[in-house]
């Protein structure tokens, strides 16, 4: 019986006519035909899926708790037992915070710093990377070694000389200090060079024969080809600058210049019992990063993989 039914169905499918096969039956049939090995794979997949769901949920607890607390009254935050969903959603936290602390000013400062530093880093980094990878001249490799060498030196080891220098230039307590310190990082040059090394030299040769100058090759051949690397570097720099705490902490003393990170930290210091509002501020400081990350997650991961694996 079953054999005949199967034959019939096979024929109908072959001919492309007849009723579409009953999907439940189809499943059962494939189940039976599936080798034990494949079946085993399916069960492990299910187990792993379940494990992943539990694991990721556990790892996301701090975020869930942060968002949930930001929608509570202060005395509802640290309750026994934990309330995962607020009994009453206090949306007013999100409107009050703008008047409680100059949050808008902080956001503007962070954005200003992050945009300027990212633009300068991407521009100077990709120019220098071209010099280091596509132009041959004596002393180039020694110079590049100096760049690599400083990546290995912990930043904390030379922050004091940097600070003395900025103090003498009269740049402490200004954005310029941070821009100068962070816009010419060796890391950007390194990341871009790693990528440019993968672009075949023949492309540049061909462009040279076509009469393009080196600057033309950089602008018209290499830049368009390196969009993924540029995106990686831009996103990583932006996020690093936005999240930076120590730089602003050392250099920006007046409240007017504070970034989101400094503002949030000082709010916590002053009003350490305003749990809900602190969480609201935290959520607001994370949202821009979340948005950027969701748009460009591919480039983050690629950037880490290139700069990491070839280092």
């Amino acid at each position, binding site marked *: 019986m079953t054999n005949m039914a199967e034959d019939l169905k096979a024929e109908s499918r072959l001919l492309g006519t007849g009723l579409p096969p009953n999907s439940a039956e189809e499943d059962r049939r494939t189940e039976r035909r599936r080798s034990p090995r494949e079946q085993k794979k399916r069960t492990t*997949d299910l187990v792993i899926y379940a*494990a*992943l769901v539990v*694991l*990721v949920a556990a790892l996301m607890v*701090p*975020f869930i*708790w*942060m968002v949930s607390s930001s929608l509570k009254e202060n005395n509802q935050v640290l309750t*026994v*037992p*934990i309330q995962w969903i607020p009994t009453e959603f206090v949306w007013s936290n999100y409107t009050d915070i703008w008047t409680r602390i100059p949050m808008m000013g902080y956001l503007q400062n962070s954005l200003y710093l992050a945009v300027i530093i990212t633009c300068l880093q991407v521009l100077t980094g990709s*120019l*220098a990377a071209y*010099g*280091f990878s596509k*132009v*041959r001249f*004596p*002393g180039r490799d020694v*110079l590049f070694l100096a760049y690599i060498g*400083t990546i*290995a030196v*912990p*930043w*904390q*080891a*030379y922050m*004091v*000389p*940097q600070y*003395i*220098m900025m103090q003498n230039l009269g740049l402490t307590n200004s954005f310029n200090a941070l821009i*100068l310190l962070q816009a010419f*990082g*060796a890391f*950007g*040059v390194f990341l871009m060079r790693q990528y440019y090394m993968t672009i075949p030299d023949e492309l540049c040769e061909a462009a040279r024969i076509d009469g393009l100058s080196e600057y033309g090759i950089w602008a018209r051949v290499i830049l368009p080809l390196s969009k993924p690397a540029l995106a990686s570097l831009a996103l990583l720099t932006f996020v690093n600058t*936005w999240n930076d*705490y120590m730089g602003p902490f*050392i250099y920006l003393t007046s409240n007017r210049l504070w970034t*989101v*990170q400094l503002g*949030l*930290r000082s709010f916590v210091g002053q009003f350490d019992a305003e*749990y809900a509002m*602190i*969480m609201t501020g*935290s*959520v607001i*400081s994370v949202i821009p*990063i979340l948005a950027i*990350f*969701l748009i460009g997650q591919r480039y*983050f*991961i690629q950037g880490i*993989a290139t700069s*990491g*694996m070839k*280092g």
Partner: protein
Amino acid sequence: MSTETIPSTVAPAVHSRGNRKQARRNTLIGWTFILPNFLGFLAFTLIPVLAAFALSFMEWTSFTAPKWVGLANFQRMFASDSFWIALRNTVVYAIGHVPLTMALALLLAMLLNRKLKGIGFFRVAIFFPYITSLVAVAVVWNMLFSPDNGPINQFLTTIGIANPPGWTSSSDWALPAVIITSVWRDMGYYMVLYLAGLQAIPAELYEAAEVDGASAWQRFWNVTIPSLRPTTFFVVVMLTVSSFKVFDLIVVMTNGGPGRSTTVLSQLIYQEGIGEGKFGYSSAISLVLFLIVLTVTVLQFKIQQRRER
């Protein structure tokens, strides 16, 4: 035809002069590309790095002129218990942070290295803590760790631990609290590195092992672990270096306290150098920090080389 022959007859005569001219032109062009970045790099990275070395042999505070003192800074440092406490805390932090992050990152990468529906979501979710702002991370975890009604201690009580630790308010538990937070934050990053490493392992290796009858566990130890050695080397170096540099997380989470129980080397450099203006003395601590990082890197490099042989 003729266009091809002309250069070969003319070239030798002009060759060396043309080459030299070309080399000079290339040098000029190369430098114009590098210069915009190099000026900033020279002034704000390279010179400060070199200055840090020189400063560590000088006595210089914000009130006095610099004076060469040889090893006096180092003598003072080795005699001060703040230095030894900070060094001890930094080492303890590294000992906790490196293996835990590595193990979890590898575990996550192994779980996530397969084609499953929605696997991308899991990867992104696990990576996200790494790019979340540090202040937000520290603030949230500080509250999670809050000793009385904090969610973590509530959880510990429900699973039967009668006296859960005081975490950031206790000098014994503050450092473990910081380590847990930093492991949670960093593992996504190293997971990405391991994922790249796992995807580079040829599938044939596993198939061959399976044909030979190796169990999943044996395949893990005899195929996965050896194939991942270059990745592991890189991960260990990066993790160790970043552990010795730990700074901002501690400043925001505990600010070195309670007491001096979580003070680390970077923080000591900041306090002595920028806080109190002892430029020379703080640079001596910087030099020690740099030497530790360098030694660890070179040592791991040597171990890696010997294994490969």
